[in-house]
């Protein structure tokens, strides 16, 4: 196992740099090579290479049986993965856009997540769902959602949101190893970003929060594409003399909150950034963990959530940009947090 990677994506002094997509593909290839039970299935993942090109050439390397194109039947596919997992396989399903988990919620939530508990521990459902989420591609309201809060609210399901290429690989490998259902939410805008993934880089454990940057003044907690935006904001804030931490939970459920609570206790200010709409979103959980803990006594200012607007994602680029946090907004929010205290 590798140590928790804490470097921001883009640095090159750790050796090989590959894209986030390549990192996912590498994890799939390694897992399939190492374990006959692993296979991937989903819409257009074969010769087409995946809607986002993630599976790429795997079809040619592993064949149509193990890189299995499916009809457009999300409920059926996920259900088939549940059944295959129960019968000894380790399926990895690609849901073409995470929005289409809506079609498969019964199998994800009522079946996969509950079977181990419901059967009193007599069965396991070791399956992985990979699903691209997020806005920024002009695909509008039905193809741009960030639904991580739903999944994190489901006992029995593990939820992962990799923000770097190294995590994209390492967390996926751990997800495939896990004897439980894991949903890996990959951000579309990250697929083409690059980051250091040392040759032979391996598993990144589930349930370990990463501190991407350590600062004095404000603790920024961010997920998915917001990690990178927060790191960019951090650079700009540093120029202003505001020194921020950037913390990436990576696994949303089960959540490793200790590094967050610790950092907030130190800085006294929390800025929680997510792309999803704010109302009943994931960062509400972070805020709650902070104020249920003694960290509440160290707060120098009210907690600040910066989220997507409570709107469906619009099509027009200027509207889409306005609907979710951008670097400017993060900078402004951090500044105003400093002023409030």
């Amino acid at each position, binding site marked *: 196992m590798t140590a928790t990677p804490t470097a921001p994506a883009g640095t090159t002094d750790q050796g090989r740099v590959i894209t986030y997509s390549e990192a996912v593909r590498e994890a799939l290839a390694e897992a399939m090579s190492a374990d006959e039970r692993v296979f991937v299935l989903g819409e257009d993942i074969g010769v087409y290479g995946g809607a986002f090109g993630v599976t790429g050439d795997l079809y040619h390397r592993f064949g149509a049986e193990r890189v299995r194109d499916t009809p457009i039947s999300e409920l059926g596919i996920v*259900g088939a993965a*549940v059944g*295959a997992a129960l019968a000894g396989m380790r399926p990895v399903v690609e849901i073409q856009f995470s929005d289409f988990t809506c079609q498969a919620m019964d199998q994800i939530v009522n079946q996969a997540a509950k079977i181990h508990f419901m059967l009193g521990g007599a069965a396991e459902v070791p399956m992985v769902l990979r699903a691209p989420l997020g806005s920024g591609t002009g695909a509008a309201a039905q193809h741009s959602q960030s639904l991580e809060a739903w999944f994190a609210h489901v006992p029995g399901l593990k939820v992962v949101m990799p923000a770097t290429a190294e995590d994209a690989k390492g967390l996926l490998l751990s997800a495939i190893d896990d004897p439980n259902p894991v949903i890996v939410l990959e951000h579309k805008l990250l697929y083409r970003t690059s980051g250091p993934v040392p040759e032979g880089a391996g598993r990144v454990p589930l349930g370990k929060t990463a501190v991407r940057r350590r600062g004095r003044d404000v603790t920024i907690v961010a997920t998915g594409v917001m990690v990178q935006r927060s790191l960019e904001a951090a650079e700009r804030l540093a120029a202003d003399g505001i020194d921020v931490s950037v913390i990436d939970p990576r696994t949303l459920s089960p959540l490793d909150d200790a590094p967050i609570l610790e950092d907030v206790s130190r800085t006294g200010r929390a800025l929680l950034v997510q792309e999803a709409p704010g109302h009943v979103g994931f960062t509400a959980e972070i805020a709650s963990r902070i104020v249920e803990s003694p960290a509440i006594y160290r707060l120098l200012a009210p907690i600040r959530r910066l989220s997507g607007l409570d709107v469906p994602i619009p099509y027009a680029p200027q509207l889409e940009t306005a609907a979710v946090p951008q670097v400017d907004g993060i900078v402004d929010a951090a500044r105003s947090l400093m002023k409030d205290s």
Partner: protein
Amino acid sequence: MSKLGDDATTATRTLRTMWQIRRFEEAVDDLFARGLMHGTMHLSIGQEASATGTCFALRDDDAITSTHRGHGHCIAKGADLERMMAELLAKETGYCRGRGGSMHIADVATGNLGANGIVAGGIPIAAGAGLAYQLQGLDRVVVSFFGDGAANEGAFHEAVNLAAIWKLPVIFLCENNKYGMSFSTEKSFAIENIADRAVGYGIPGVTVDGNDVEAVNEVVAAAVERARNGEGPTLVESVTYRWKGHSKSDKNLYRTKEEISEWRDRDPIIRFERSVVERGVLDQAAIDAVRAQATEDIRTAVRAANAAPDARPDDLLEAVFAPATA
């Protein structure tokens, strides 16, 4: 192929299983009525031939997925009566340690991949298990039990199509008992036979008298052979009837007393008994002995289950995730 009633050993085993199902559910009905059982229940009394005929066409290492009305399927697939009853009585010794109850009994070890509280929930799971066996190069097959009502869920459609295009070793066993809760098949379908849906998937569809245990067994055995030979899935419609209400709160407002009593007259167990007696395979004394034995089997199960310790609430949180092993 010989029929289930052709020799005394098989006939006895078949009859005992059907009586076990009947007695098990009568016991459940009684425990509920007396307030000794919790939750909800769905009885399959009247449908014993369908479960038994089907499961008796399977090998031990074949699998099933079952439904909310699944006691019969479990028993016919070989479940332990005491562990089943313990589960319903919310005992630590139950199949699910009291976490699942009637709608979630499973025995993955013996190929019962689980009852399901979700109508049609087990159908895609069955396709997936079939896919696993195919990928593993095994010649196991999977039977997916579901009701007429379930055939109108999207899950049915998607799963049957997956099995059809991939030639998965699955038998889709639709127990058409004329009602999905209160909604009759006359109203919920614009076709006569649910088996006709097979046409849309390019697979064989067969309708069989679900109260004739031997007929069910023959039809399923043929479908199993097809599946084992890699020829793909079959849709079997087993026409039967549930004598009892849908669940405990049913007032039977949607059907007539006459209809119920007509179907009671077609009792699948009595019918099989008559047939084997007529054919001289078993005599009345043997039959009485089987019934008495089944009654005793259930009494023993209830007694033992009752004596078992209650399910323990202390480790709920730890029970959510399977621990990493490798």
